[in-house]
């Protein structure tokens, strides 16, 4: 029995030490706001731990006293008045401590909340996020219409720059949550909301929908890719371009397949006649690391499986299966893989 307790404690310790390394981890902070959240988290953790230990100590003490009292049942009871007075002062101290601790936590919570909302800048980078069942539409607005960038499921940001994220939803309530960077923000249909954040450390951070939004809520992830400002500008410049026309014969055939089949009913490839906005923009699909909102890696094999029958990979998603002849499917893959 004692061995079991020790192994349980060991397992808990292992879980705790595993914290602080992941790319979807509130304790592995990558920005100043996540840092405030992390501090609050540790404060709550230590306060709760101390209270837990104290309560357990009292509980253990009372058990052993009760056990002792059983043995000494014959002993005459102490004077009632004294015991009453002692109990009353004990309760008073406990209530005062509780109120004090709650007040400290309240102040800590309010100051952390204030810090989360107070990042300001005259020159932030604006990113728009629109939640869909079950993927993220990402816009980089620009006063010049030709410079607007539309992509999906991957948010590139420069490190050390304040970002303002304008968000809304297309269908149901979603919630944007990248734990390494900021707290959660609900995306509500018909309502625009803004959240500020800043990433100070280069890296790829994973985020996820944090509000149940239907069948594939669990497969609605996104990546925040924080890179050096020069690299970010280069990426943004590249994303502004329309898709390059295909050069090889297979890719040319693939473009024909794309434009003459069901694909065009939902997807956009800038530079072609495909311009529907129901599904993710595919203009630079090959430059993205995952497909289906972080569900599967973006490799030709997975992409082929996704196109042929996405319902087996992500049941209930809005993409219909496509029974293309294999030649056409290969050509389509060649075309899509070329959309860098």
């Amino acid at each position, binding site marked *: 029995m004692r061995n079991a307790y020790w192994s349980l404690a060991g397992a808990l310790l292992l879980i705790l030490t595993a914290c602080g390394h992941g790319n979807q981890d509130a304790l592995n902070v990558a920005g100043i706001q996540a840092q405030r959240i992390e501090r609050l988290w540790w404060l709550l953790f230590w306060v709760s731990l101390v209270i837990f230990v104290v309560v357990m100590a009292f509980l253990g003490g009372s058990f052993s006293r009760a056990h002792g009292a059983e043995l000494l049942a014959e002993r005459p009871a102490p004077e009632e008045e004294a015991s009453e007075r002692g109990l009353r002062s004990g309760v008073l101290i406990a209530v005062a401590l509780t109120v004090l601790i709650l007040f400290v936590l309240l102040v800590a919570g309010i100051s952390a909340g204030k810090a989360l909302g107070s990042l300001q800048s005259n020159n932030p980078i604006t990113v728009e996020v629109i939640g869909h069942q079950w993927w993220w539409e990402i816009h980089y607005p620009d006063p010049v219409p030709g410079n607007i960038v539309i992509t999906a499921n991957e948010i590139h940001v420069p490190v050390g720059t304040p970002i303002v994220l304008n968000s809304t939803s297309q*269908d149901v309530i979603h919630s944007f949550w990248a734990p390494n960077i900021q707290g959660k923000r609900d995306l509500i249909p018909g309502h625009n909301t803004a959240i500020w954040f800043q990433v100070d450390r280069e890296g790829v951070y994973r985020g996820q929908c944090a509000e149940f939004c239907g069948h594939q809520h669990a497969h609605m992830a996104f990546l925040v890719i924080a890179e050096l400002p020069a690299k970010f500008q280069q990426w943004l410049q590249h994303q502004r371009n329309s898709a390059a026309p295909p050069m090889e014969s297979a890719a040319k055939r693939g473009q024909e397949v794309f434009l003459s*089949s*069901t694909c065009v*009913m*939902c997807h956009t490839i800038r530079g072609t006649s495909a311009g529907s906005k129901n599904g993710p923009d595919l203009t630079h699909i090959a430059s993205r690391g995952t497909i289906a909102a972080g569900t599967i890696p973006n490799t030709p094999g997975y992409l082929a499986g996704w196109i042929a029958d996405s*319902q087996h990979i992500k*049941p209930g998603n809005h993409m*219909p*299966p496509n*029974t293309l002849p294999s030649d056409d499917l290969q050509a389509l893959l060649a075309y899509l893989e070329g959309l860098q």
Partner: protein
Amino acid sequence: MRLAQMLSLISVLSLITAGCQRERRDFVQAPDMSNAAQATSVSELHPANLPAPKPVSSTYSESAYDVNEGKRLFDWYNCSGCHFHGGGGIGPPLMDAEWLYGDAPQNIYASIVEGRPNGMPSFAGKIPEYQVWQLVAYVRSMSGQLPKDVSPGRGDSMMAKQPESSIPTEHPSKEHPADLKPEHPR
């Protein structure tokens, strides 16, 4: 005695839930239904045998899930761009008793897949067959042709519009005899 009562209650309840077919969802379509819809025959004349009959659309018009999918696709595929939300505008209205090309599901299917003169595009090769049938079922719900428990009871958009389930059933043949049928504005 009490146990027997409980058991019979449970069995009745489970029988009721077993009847919830109208909410059934089939995410994985039969392979032939995911083919892009091809043209249907409009002629009575065929060389040799009649072509194989089109799949019956009744399963779609009996499923609340499919009719709601049709409602979503009606916006996604921009049907509302011309027909608006049934009231008509650039295209003819779909919520009245008048059917220019027939009110049978097969007629509506043909209108979507083949297109019609004066502006209705052909969606052949662009919409999977099962989605065409979902659209057909929804289009019929717009004039109250489907049972109330199958028609959508509310919209997802913020537009205030009467839900299809409370639209009175239009009767094409009785209210608009063929000879009194008004000319379509075009």
